[in-house]
């Protein structure tokens, strides 16, 4: 696969190779499987992120026809646990010795005739489903109560069920049940031309439309060895930062909602709305959709008046963040809430602002620059070590400032010229694309078939990684802090469930 150094291994060599990579300082990012030929056994791929500016490492291994199983790596690399369970559900691969060998993506009681990601899976046939009880951790003691909260929750929220084991106000254990919203998005890419695939990528997580479509476009461009024009690169940076801006401002407003700081909530959401309105004025879409395409941008954008609008907004945002940081009632609820240690963050796969708030200073924009980020002056990556809700909010506040600075730089240095180039899909090409979205790192792996259409697209979203980490900050805390803690993670369900 282009953009990564590959090792083709036998199944039994995988554990040793993973150990060696991590000993060299790499961090595993994800694992997935696909079926290169219909009716043949699948291939499993592991992606690891080496040190900054070093190419990504990819381990590939083709399973043999007789036994479609592998040793589970989850006991040693916990962050792979969910990826392995996903492969069990969707690709029919068995992982020996998995610590949590239960369904994840497809709920208990959902039965597919053959694994859904098998290319032979019948088109438009919904899995059969009769709800079955699902695996919950056993809990003893007469005082312990169980509260299943969701999937339809209060307010306007995305669907998910959170099961609490609690005594009075104290939460003993938190067990989220997700993937109610699993829409089978990865399967939908099969057989599409890349120009249409990007429309799907935009709709995997609505508020991360740019992050997903950008990672997808870059994966396709890498696969097809297509160099996009300079202006398109700068415009892509501008769009990605506009997306970060409205997301982070909304995040701050929503965090105030959970700490019941009413005016703070109103102001955060007002600023987010102003950014969305700017998106509408300058791009035609409040979610910045319909702009990116493999090969560049679908049309040129006139952003000349944007810096002036941003400079008007900047002092308002700064004053808002200053006020938040001097409000004791707000800070009291955030500090020490939902602590995530560096080790747990690293081992369980935390990404984006969550890992940076727990002391891991990595950011794909500076570590593996894409689009025009290499030509722009990046501020230092904001890092906090407290790992609590306040640290997560502070990281995002600093990112807001960095975003505005990057956006202004990109607009100021915007080169003239075309915004797209012709892209010709190559039979059998493969590519990796990545992007640091508002919620963290997003990876796309793209495989083309013999006719130049998409055969397999793997989506690694930031929320999938962070939802796995989240419960570790909830066990042994209290009910009063739960809503604040969940808001401080700032996750989407759509991105996680896909």
């Amino acid at each position, binding site marked *: 696969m282009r953009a990564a150094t590959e090792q083709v291994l036998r199944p039994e060599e995988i554990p040793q190779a993973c150990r060696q990579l991590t000993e060299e300082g790499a961090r595993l990012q994800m694992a997935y499987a696909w079926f290169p030929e219909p009716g043949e056994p699948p291939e499993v791929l592991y992606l690891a992120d080496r040190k900054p500016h070093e190419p990504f490492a990819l381990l590939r291994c083709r399973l043999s026809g007789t036994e479609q199983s592998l040793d589970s790596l989850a006991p040693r690399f916990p962050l792979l646990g969910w990826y392995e369970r996903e492969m069990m559900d969707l690709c029919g691969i068995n992982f020996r010795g998995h610590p949590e060998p239960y369904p994840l993506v*497809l709920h208990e009681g959902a039965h*597919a005739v053959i694994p*859904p990601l098998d290319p032979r899976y019948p088109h*438009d*046939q*919904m*899995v059969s*489903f009769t709800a079955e009880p699902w695996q919950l951790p056993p809990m003893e003691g007469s005082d312990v109560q169980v509260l299943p909260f969701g*999937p*339809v929750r*209060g*307010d*306007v*929220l*995305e*669907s998910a069920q959170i099961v609490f084991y609690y005594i009075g106000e104290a939460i003993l254990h938190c067990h989220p049940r997700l*993937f*109610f*919203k*699993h*829409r*089978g*998005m990865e*399967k939908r890419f099969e057989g599409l031309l890349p*120009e*249409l695939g990007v*429309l*799907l990528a935009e*709709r995997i*997580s*609505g*508020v991360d*439309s740019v992050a997903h479509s950008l990672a997808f476009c870059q994966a396709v461009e890498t696969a097809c060895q297509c160099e996009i024009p300079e202006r398109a690169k700068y415009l892509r940076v501008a769009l990605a930062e506009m997306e970060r801006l409205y997301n982070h401002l*909304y995040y701050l407003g929503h965090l105030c909602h959970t700490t019941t*700081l*009413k*005016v*703070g909530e*109103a*102001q955060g*959401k*007002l600023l*987010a*709305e102003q950014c*969305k*309105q700017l998106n*509408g004025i300058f*791009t*035609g*879409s*409040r*979610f910045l959709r*319909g702009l990116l395409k493999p090969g560049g941008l*679908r*049309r040129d954008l006139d952003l000349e008046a944007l810096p002036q609008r941003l400079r008007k907004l900047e002092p308002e945002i700064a004053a808002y963040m200053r*006020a938040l940081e001097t*409000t004791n*009632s707000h800070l009291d609820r955030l500090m020490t809430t939902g602590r995530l240690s560096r080790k747990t963050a690293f081992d369980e796969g935390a990404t984006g602002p969550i890992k940076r708030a727990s002391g891991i200073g990595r950011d794909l924009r500076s570590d593996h620059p894409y689009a025009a980020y290499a030509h722009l002056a990046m501020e230092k990556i904001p890092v906090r070590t407290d790992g609590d809700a306040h640290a997560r909010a502070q990281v995002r506040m600093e990112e807001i400032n960095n975003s505005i600075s990057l956006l202004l730089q990109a607009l100021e240095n915007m080169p003239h010229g075309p915004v797209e180039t012709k892209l010709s899909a190559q039979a059998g090409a493969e590519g990796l694309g990545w992007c640091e979205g508002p919620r963290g790192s997003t990876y796309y792996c793209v495989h083309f078939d013999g006719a130049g259409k998409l055969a397999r697209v793997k989506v690694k979203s930031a929320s999938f990684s962070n939802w796995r980490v989240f419960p570790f900050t909830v066990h042994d805390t209290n009910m009063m802090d739960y809503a604040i803690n969940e808001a401080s993670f700032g996750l*989407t*369900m759509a991105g996680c469930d896909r």
Partner: protein
Amino acid sequence: MPIWTLFGLKRGMATSSWPGKEDANLQTGVLGLPQFQPDRCQDGCRACAECCLPGAIGIEPGPSGERLTLDYGKCIACQLCTEVCPADAFRKSNDWAFGVRNREDLVWAEALASRPAQELTEKIQQCFRRSLHIRHVDAGSCNGCESELQALNNPYYNLHRLGIFFTPSPRFADLLLVTGSVTYAMREPLLETYNAMPEPRWVMAMGTCAISGGATGGGYSCAHGLEGILPVDMYVPGCPPNPAAMIHALLVLLNRAAQSVQGGHYVQ
């Protein structure tokens, strides 16, 4: 705390006076669903139908050769048809107020029946007068619709001023607002919520996914929106519909605004 009181007072009021006054609806520049002018269409050109991911544009044999069909209930406003059409038969537009009471009104009709756009239903006026409580259920969306629904409570749109509220309990709800294409796992919770609502009750399909599945309908885990699952009283296509389009649709449901679309034609 006093700093926030001062902060709020200094900031002043942000709420838009739309739709009371026909001034800014805050959607400047926002693209809506494409405009269709079939008389410009060139014979034998299938460019638009071929690039339409959700199949909103189709081709059927007509008396004089092939003819285009258009269903706004499937349109995800991706604007691709407006970019590939060589004859400008599809054009970008700002037509976003697309909420309709009948599904047929989203399907392009060659000739419009002369019936007026939906008579006022007295029943809804008697039941709800000027207040409405909504229970929202996310049945498998991309979070775009939720983001815009959440925006309805920001100071600009301030939905409460119109007497419309979100309620956590289906027992207090008059309207079930559904987003998403209805996954196999959300089907039961959705029906349970509906069954927990007292009658009379209404259902709104918000966003193209909830109407027809859009780009995310079908496959191994999704239905085609509310088709065949629940009776729908109000359809709001868009991907996602913007907050003003959502408010407009709620007001159309309450007979407080006029429907803009009939037989797929957008009337100002």
